[in-house]
């Protein structure tokens, strides 16, 4: 383990930026100062992250993580949580793209938020977000990761609700925070259960601090059985399911995805950074970081894969019918996150991280591009009022084309390699998913890929290619009014291209979307050009998914695996579900038939992408305003269903039951009664002070009688004796 104090500067530079912007920027109100402080602090983090990752003993070069122990935060009996950072291969990759994409988005935002009254507040929150996110990925134990987890949830709330005068911003922010919180419940329970089972919550062994790794401890446990009962048994499966609930909240999967479309009420750079590139990938990070736990819980892996695939398809069907450009991208994000969890669920953790990285590139690109479009269209977000923008915003158009082709999965663009990898690994997964299911999951993934291509093409066509509709009056289009902009008067000036501060990040991200996938070219393709069995990305992340307790060759696997219940399938006498390393991308002798099969599937992926683009073009180029099914446009009425089933009952119970009955009735009632009793007592005692002389006489008499009575009683007692 290598100690390096520079690691903490990565997280504290943005924090310092946030503090400076909040305290000083507020006074100065100088946009240039605020922008420079914000971007410089993230820039410092970026430089340090790159240095620490790529230098000769860097995180991506050596197998040991770089650690930085700041202080011992909690130590109570066996429970130990340090404020300590660790950059290993996984967090190194994450830190690299978080800081770099974050930097680009900060630069973009300096242009996008120009003129806003809360400029300093925006950048303070954005820097605070970078601090939280980097704490999340660089933490070396669950509790510190949870601190970052909560921090990004908080910053998401602050930034979604940034526009104080937008009606829908505050409810959206609340919704995001509460949905996250429901997920956090699962996360915390999982964390506690990990502590109970292993006595530790740290990811890494730190001998000189006396800390042992919880993950290594779990990898020594036997693999749980593939039963539904295992979920509630309090074992590794329970831990995995609880942690996954946390991931569904943070990464917007079924059932907790409802906050992400509403979160588009925030400024577009926020949507790009938080809800596309970074915060929503925190769930995937956590699952991959805990891959030991998940691979020991086949039931949990199954659930993860099913939910991932279901979410991907579900969100894609909704995205195809949305009219707000940011909503399409929001549902697209949910869908792509579903892909990442599908990959995790079939054991292809490295593929999931690869997709996280490429998704960060192209989704940030698409969001920033849409931000540029919105900016150029004077804050118009409805695609039905756009069209033909490629003439007016050429740079935005070209860069968005790169993002578009990447997300559709067109070859050599980044998304192609990662998505193809996920689909192939789903089809060929032999562990963790019963045999028939992985073909079904592949089919779901393929349909989703087709839909992705269709709706992204629809977005591009409606925005850039079709006829110009931004001079049309409101009446000709759908009657729904926009809360932020009523077009009483038609936009009289043309849309314009965005300034350099916004277009340069677009160009950089477009380049990354184009070439960023080349680090992960699969062997099936690179072997055609003489490549290495494991591509660069796989080699980089391999240590993350291999485990010291499982140094077994494939032949000896059966004798060392303990099963709590008999496994459901047997192939040639060996259990169908093998230990993690069989499926986690470690080197396996790929036979020629496997390679051909993989190449075939690559072709199928390309075909799906191209067919999707063609379908989208044909459907929407001539008829950009083609009405999509109302059910999809109304997002299957999910929000309404949640309102009716959960929100309204809670609200009614709170208002009628808790507030009226308990708060007003019992507590306030108690206090009122207490007060009234005292007042009544006072009223009674008032008669002693009426100024009423005869009353005084009566009281004196009463007192005298009592005293005489007492003595008479005593005397009578004496007489009796």
């Amino acid at each position, binding site marked *: 383990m290598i100690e390096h104090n520079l690691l903490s500067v990565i997280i504290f530079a943005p924090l310092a930026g946030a503090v400076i912007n909040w305290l000083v920027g507020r006074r100065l109100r100088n946009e240039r100062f605020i922008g420079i402080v914000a971007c410089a602090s993230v820039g410092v983090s970026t430089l340090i992250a790159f240095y620490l990752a790529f230098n000769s003993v860097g995180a991506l070069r050596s197998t040991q993580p770089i650690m930085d122990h700041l202080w011992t935060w909690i130590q109570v009996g066996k429970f130990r949580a340090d404020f300590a950072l660790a950059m290993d291969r996984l967090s190194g990759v994450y830190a690299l793209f978080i800081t770099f994409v974050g930097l680009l988005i900060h630069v973009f935002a300096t242009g996008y938020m120009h003129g806003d009254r809360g400029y300093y507040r925006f950048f303070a929150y954005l820097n605070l977000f970078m601090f939280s996110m980097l704490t999340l990925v660089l933490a070396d134990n669950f509790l510190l990761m949870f601190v970052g987890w909560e921090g990004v949830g908080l910053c998401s709330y602050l930034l979604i609700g940034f526009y104080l005068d937008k009606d829908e911003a505050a409810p959206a922010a609340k919704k995001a925070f509460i949905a996250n919180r429901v997920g956090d419940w699962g996360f915390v329970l999982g964390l506690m259960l990990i502590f109970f089972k292993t006595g530790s919550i740290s990811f890494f062994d730190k001998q000189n601090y006396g800390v042992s790794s919880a993950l290594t401890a779990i990898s020594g446990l036997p693999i749980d059985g593939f039963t539904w009962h295992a979920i509630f048994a309090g074992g590794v499966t329970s831990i995995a399911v609880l942690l996954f609930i946390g991931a569904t909240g943070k990464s917007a999967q079924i059932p907790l995805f409802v906050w992400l479309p509403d979160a588009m009420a925030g400024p577009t750079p926020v949507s790009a950074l938080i809800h596309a590139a970074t915060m929503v990938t925190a769930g995937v990070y956590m699952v991959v970081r805990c891959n030991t736990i998940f691979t020991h819980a086949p039931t949990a892996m199954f659930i993860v894969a099913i939910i991932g695939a279901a979410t991907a398809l579900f969100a894609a069907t909704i995205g195809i019918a949305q009219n707000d450009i940011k909503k399409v991208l929001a549902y697209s994000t949910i869908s792509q996150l579903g892909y990442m969890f599908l990959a995790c669920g079939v054991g292809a953790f490295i593929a999931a991280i690869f997709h996280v990285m490429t998704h960060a590139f192209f989704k940030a690109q698409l969001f920033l591009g849409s931000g540029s479009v919105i900016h150029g269209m004077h804050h118009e977000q409805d695609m039905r009022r756009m069209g033909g923008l490629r003439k007016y915003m050429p740079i935005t158009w070209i860069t968005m084309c790169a993002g578009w082709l990447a997300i559709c999965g067109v070859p050599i663009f980044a998304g192609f390699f990662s998505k193809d990898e996920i689909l192939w690994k789903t089809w060929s997964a032999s562990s963790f998913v019963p045999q028939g299911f992985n073909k079904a999951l592949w089919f779901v993934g393929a349909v989703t890929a087709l839909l992705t291509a269709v709706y992204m093409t629809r977005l591009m066509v409606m925005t850039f290619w079709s006829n110009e509709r931004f001079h049309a009056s409101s009446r000709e289009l759908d009657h729904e009014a926009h809360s932020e902009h009523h077009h009483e008067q038609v936009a009289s000036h043309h849309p314009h291209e965005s300034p350099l501060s916004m277009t340069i990040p677009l160009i950089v991200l477009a380049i990354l979307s184009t070439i960023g996938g080349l680090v992960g070219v699969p062997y099936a393709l690179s072997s055609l050009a003489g490549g290495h069995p494991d591509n660069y990305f796989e080699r980089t992340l391999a240590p993350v998914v291999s485990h010291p307790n499982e140094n077994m060759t494939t032949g000896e696997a059966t004798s060392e695996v303990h099963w709590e219940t008999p496994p459901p399938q047997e192939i040639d006498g060996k259990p169908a579900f093998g230990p993690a390393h069989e499926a986690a991308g470690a080197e396996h002798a790929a036979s020629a038939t496997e390679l051909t099969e993989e190449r075939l599937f690559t072709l199928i992926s390309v075909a799906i992408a191209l067919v999707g683009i063609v379908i989208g073009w044909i459907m929407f180029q001539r008829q950009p305003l083609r009405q999509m099914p109302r059910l999809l446009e109304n997002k299957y009425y999910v929000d309404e269903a949640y309102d009716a089933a959960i929100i309204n009952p809670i609200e009614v119970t709170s208002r009628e039951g808790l507030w009226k009955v308990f708060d007003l009735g019992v507590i306030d009632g108690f206090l009122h009664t207490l007060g009234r009793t005292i007042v009544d007592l006072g009223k009674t005692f*008032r008669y002693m*002070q*009426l*100024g*009423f*002389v*005869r009353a005084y*006489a*009566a009281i004196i*008499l009463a007192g005298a009688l009592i005293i005489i009575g007492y003595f008479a009683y005593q005397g009578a007692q004496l007489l009796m004796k």
Partner: protein
Amino acid sequence: MVPQLSWYLALSAVLFTIGVVGVMLKRNVISMFMCIELMLNAVNLTFVAFSSFFRDLSGQLFVFIVMTVAAAEAAVGLGIIITVFRNRESLDVDDASSLRL
């Protein structure tokens, strides 16, 4: 027949009770005062009765003191009543209740 001690005590008690009831129920200040005097005299009767029956002079000594006190109190009290009457034009004790809460 020779009067018993208990008869004297009973008479004194009755007089005292009449005085108490009169103080409480009479509204005229002068009447209240007369009832107070009645109570004092009832007590005097008790003392004298005990002094006579137990051949102890301290009872009668006490009566002297009580009478002195009664006289002084009557003087002061009547002075107060006259002042209050001058200010309020009324001898009704219920009207003198400006010390109420």
